[in-house]
């Protein structure tokens, strides 16, 4: 592309230089040849005019001395035409000088005749010789003048015609050399539109899609310009990185919500779930929390080792993950050995009943330890219940926690419903030891 532009400029410059050099040469020729030509013709015109007035003077005068002087001047002037006059001028001037001589001698004759007449009685004879000589001289001078002015006009016209031709050539040159770039520029703009702006716009649209997490579209034909193609590719690769990041983020988010060991929801997720559940509570369907703690878990860890302790946790969580007959349940790991279940309960009694059921189930669990021995354990459960959607989740949790504490104090492997703890000491749903 650049080479084309440079070549074009070079051609235009050479063309212009060539034309202008030609103009310069012609200007030099004009100055050196044609201007001097015009000047000499002007001089000749002036000399012819001067000759005409000298001839007129010699015709009109009758003074002998003046006649002689004028005639000499006419002769000298006529001799001057020899330098740069045409044959017409040279011959004409010679003839005129001769005619001036005859005018002078005609005058002299008349003067002699006048003297004779004074002496004798002859009749004066009018000599018209001088008049005819004068008229002839004037005719010749007229012809010479016309010749000179025609020559001058010719040369001037020639010069002007030359200038006009050159001007027309320069005009064409300029028009052509300016039109071509104009067309080129138009073409360049069209090309730019296709090869520059289109790929850039496509890249911008792709960026937009990345932001909106939509599928990216690669351009159907690759942009001609390498740089733009690279940009397009970079954006697409950025797009795939971005979507990978998004997926990873999702995974991380999920991971952040799951307890890695047990696979149950973690505390964060549980709290979100609990808040949502409370908001759903009505007088018909409330929210129940069952807070479960493994009894003497530390002793299990000390006796059998942490890996075995983990297995116990795993078997409990497996149980909790598959508990049946609950509406909108979520089992979550609440702490080291604490687990929690939240669900939509119809009544507090239902929650208490289910908690007792869970306790039994927990006691039936058998976990195979690392050394191969079978381990059994029991759990304590604290229960809380609410029907009010305005209840604070942490309040409800605290109630369950106090219930759990009470259950532990009452000897573990039992259930304490919060309602019973505070009000009804005689209620049948007291902690049960299985």
């Amino acid at each position, binding site marked *: 592309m650049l080479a084309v532009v440079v070549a074009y400029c070079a051609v235009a410059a050479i063309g212009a230089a060539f034309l202008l050099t030609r103009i310069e040469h012609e200007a030099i020729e004009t100055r050196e040849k044609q201007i001097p030509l015009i000047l000499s013709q002007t*001089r000749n015109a002036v000399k012819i005019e001067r*000759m005409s007035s000298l001839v007129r003077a010699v015709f009109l005068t009758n003074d002998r001395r003046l006649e*002689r002087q004028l005639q*000499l*001047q006419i*002769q*000298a*002037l006529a*001799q001057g035409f020899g330098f740069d006059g045409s044959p017409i001028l040279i011959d004409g001037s010679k003839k005129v000088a001769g005619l001036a001589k005859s005018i002078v001698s005609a005058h002299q004759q008349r003067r002699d005749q006048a003297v004779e007449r004074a002496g004798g009685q002859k009749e004066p004879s009018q000599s018209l010789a001088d008049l005819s000589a004068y008229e002839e001289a004037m005719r010749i001078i007229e012809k010479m003048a016309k010749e000179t002015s025609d020559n001058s006009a010719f040369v001037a016209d020639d010069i002007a015609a030359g200038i006009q031709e050159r001007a027309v050539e320069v005009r064409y040159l300029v028009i052509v050399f300016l039109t071509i770039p104009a067309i080129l520029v138009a073409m360049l703009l069209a090309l730019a539109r296709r090869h520059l702006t289109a790929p850039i716009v496509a890249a911008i649209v792709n960026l937009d899609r990345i932001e909106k997490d939509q599928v990216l579209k690669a351009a159907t034909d690759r942009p001609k310009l390498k740089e733009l193609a690279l940009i397009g590719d970079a954006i697409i690769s950025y797009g795939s990185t971005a979507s990978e990041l998004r997926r990873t983020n999702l995974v991380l988010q999920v991971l952040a919500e799951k307890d890695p060991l047990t696979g149950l929801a973690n505390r964060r997720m549980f709290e979100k779930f609990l808040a949502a559940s409370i908001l759903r509570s009505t007088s018909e369907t409330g929210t129940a929390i069952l807070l479960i703690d493994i009894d003497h878990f530390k002793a299990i860890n000390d006796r059998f080792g942490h890996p075995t302790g983990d297995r116990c946790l795993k078997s409990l969580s497996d149980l909790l993950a598959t508990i049946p007959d609950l509406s909108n349940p979520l089992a979550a790991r609440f702490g080291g050995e604490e687990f929690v279940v939240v669900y939509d309960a119809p009544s507090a009694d239902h929650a208490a009943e289910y908690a007792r059921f869970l306790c039994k189930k927990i006691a039936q669990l058998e976990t195979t330890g690392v050394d191969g021995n079978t381990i059994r354990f029991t759990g304590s459960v604290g229960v809380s219940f609410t029907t009010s959607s305005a209840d604070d989740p942490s309040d409800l949790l605290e109630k369950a926690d106090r219930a759990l504490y009470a259950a532990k104090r009452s000897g573990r492997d039992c259930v304490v419903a919060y309602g019973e703890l505070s009000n009804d000491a005689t209620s049948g749903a007291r902690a049960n030891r299985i």
Partner: protein
Amino acid sequence: MMRTSVIAIVALLTAMSAANAAERLRIATEGAYPPFNLIDQNGTLKGFDVDIAKALCEQLKSECTFQTVEWPKIIDGLEADKYDLIVASMAYTKERAARVEFSAPYYRSHSVLVGDADKFTDSSPTALAGVRIAAAEGTIQADYVKQAYTQSVLVLAKDQPSAQQLLEEKKADLLIGDAIELLSFMETEKGSVYGYVGDPISSEFLQSSAHIAAQKGNVELIARVNDALKQIKLNGVYDKINDQYFPFSIY
């Protein structure tokens, strides 16, 4: 520090004044060739050549001084660098061109024979056999008579006015010289009895055009003189001087 800057300023001023100082041109002419160059009764150098030289100096923005030199020695003086230019109606010859640089012509004329126009009508060499022809020594006209008018008697004088005197004193029958110069002569009281004899002599030996001469090799000065000549012809200064001396243009 102070001293060097003072020296620098002085050097700069000297250079500037040197650049601004006008060029000086020394001009030589004969002083015995009226009306082109002559010394009048008061001893002043006047004439067409002198006026043209002054006009050229003004055009060249130079200061000019004039001196008169005898015609036979005028080129010797130029070669000895006694002056820079000769403006003295010098005609072009090959021999002279070998010793000086000539400018373009500043006026053009012919050579003619002058004498009793009634007695002599034919100016051909055969017709003038035995006739005494006066000429100034060292002029092209004198050389021409020696070459072309072999049957005539050449009477040499030391300059043109002296050659004219020979004619007046009847020590010669005819006078050969420049047509324009002789026109001035014939318009005087003494010259009024004479007239042009025959046609003007046009021969390649006898180009009577007047040129300015500079030292051989000084092409640059001659180029500037030619340029100045062109200028004064274009701007009318030449014509004004011409009109003071002659009734028509002698270029």
